[in-house]
């Protein structure tokens, strides 16, 4: 049965376009927590997330999610996934998009109103998605991931382009969900979001540099902020 780890990655190797983009990545993500996946663009964050939701062809290693191998049919209504590019239909309204995905997930219709409220899209339900602003668009995509009762949320850069107030509200929502036992894996390339996570996975060039809590990382590197801690870890790994 499941231990306290919602996701367990062991020795994961992934090739994309003939290049090794994940090099023996191993990590565990504890249940009921917000784990930040940070690193520069192109370091393999999205590939790792795709492997966790089970849509990535992997070359080696194993990924176990909620006690089953990633991509198992039984996991398909237990995971909420929001891709980096908003994955919603531009030629449908916000509500039509949500109603469709609701039907696919066999979630109750009342979920539509709930998730619209959670991502702060009230008043935009009848608007065509193609006419939304960038921030509204990515929140629509995030809302789809919140439909049903996912036990694991995999969110690829959900807060890009949002105004600070909304970003703060979303992080509050993430923590509320985590306190209810939902596990969240949230990627970002901005370091100031790292401090909001309970655990951090720092990635660079397809490898994991660190898998720890923010305070432990600061203590380990003897630095004052996470940006500096990241730099120190990068220099350390290059010196090795």
């Amino acid at each position, binding site marked *: 049965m499941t231990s306290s780890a919602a996701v367990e990655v062991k020795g994961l190797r992934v090739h994309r376009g003939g290049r090794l983009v994940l090099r023996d990545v191993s990590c565990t993500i504890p249940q009921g927590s917000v784990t930040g996946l940070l690193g520069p663009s192109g370091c393999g964050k999205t590939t790792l997330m795709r492997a966790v939701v089970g849509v*990535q*062809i992997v070359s080696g290693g194993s990924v176990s999610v909620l006690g089953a191998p990633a991509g198992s049919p039984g996991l398909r209504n237990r995971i909420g*996934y929001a891709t980096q590019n908003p994955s919603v239909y531009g030629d*449908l309204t916000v509500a039509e998009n949500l109603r469709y995905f609701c039907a696919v997930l066999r979630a109750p219709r009342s979920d539509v109103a709930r998730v619209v409220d959670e991502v702060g899209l009230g008043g935009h339900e009848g608007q065509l998605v193609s006419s939304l602003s960038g921030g509204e668009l990515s929140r629509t995509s995030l809302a789809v991931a919140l439909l049903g009762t996912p036990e694991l949320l995999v969110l690829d850069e959900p807060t890009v382009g949002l105004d600070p107030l909304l970003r703060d509200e979303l992080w509050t929502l993430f923590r509320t969900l985590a306190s209810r036992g939902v596990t969240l894996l949230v990627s970002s390339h901005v370091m100031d979001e790292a401090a909001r996570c309970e655990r951090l996975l720092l990635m660079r060039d397809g490898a994991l540099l660190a898998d720890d809590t923010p305070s432990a990382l600061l203590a380990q590197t003897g630095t004052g902020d996470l940006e500096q801690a990241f730099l120190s870890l990068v220099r350390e790994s290059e010196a090795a």
Partner: protein
Amino acid sequence: MNTTILLATAARILNQFRHDRRTVALMVLMPSLLLILLRFVFNSEAAFSRAAPALLAVFPFAIMFIVTSITTLRERTTATLERLMTMPIAKLDLLFGYALAFGVVALVQVLVAVGVSLWWLGLSIGGSVWLLVVIAGLDALLGTALGLFASAFARTEFQAVQFMPLFVMPQVLLCGLFAPRESMTPVLEWLSNVMPLSYAVDALTAVTTSSDITGELLRNLVIVAACGLLALVLGAVTLRRRTP
């Protein structure tokens, strides 16, 4: 397979069309406009009546092929397909949902084209009008199914458009519209025998010339339907949950 998800998918696609009125108008009217053009090119009801049955097969087939392949490719290249593949939807739910939604559009298209041909352009048919509609409808569905299948081999919309001459034009040239199939050289006749559009054209020609429902007519109908089904299943095989 799950009927609720299949129907929700078909409803979603029809909803997308509802927001794009220009595409709907083009799809519904295009075969009729081409038939009207052809009628005045021939400038004779008799000549039109000879060519029209084959074209009632060709126009909806070609239009549904191109519309479906572009729409499906759009789903493949935007992240919505990747998201759906993480959800509890069977690949056949998605493909049959597509086929059902496009089938509804194809039926409207064919009804308009047959109506215009019979009551305005002077097409005279010996057999049942309804059988004519059924065959033309099946044929449009065949175009849909082949379009779904072909979209798997296109990376961009530009490539998908190029598939139209590749998948559709040889079938149009060899279906008996330009020269009787029996008079072709053996290689071409054999090719024409393995192309599903040939059977749709044969069936439509049979319905317009006689009211008998022969065994050959039924066989041709079954072949067209089976090819459509086969293309849908092959389309499902080309859909992958895991991608590189």
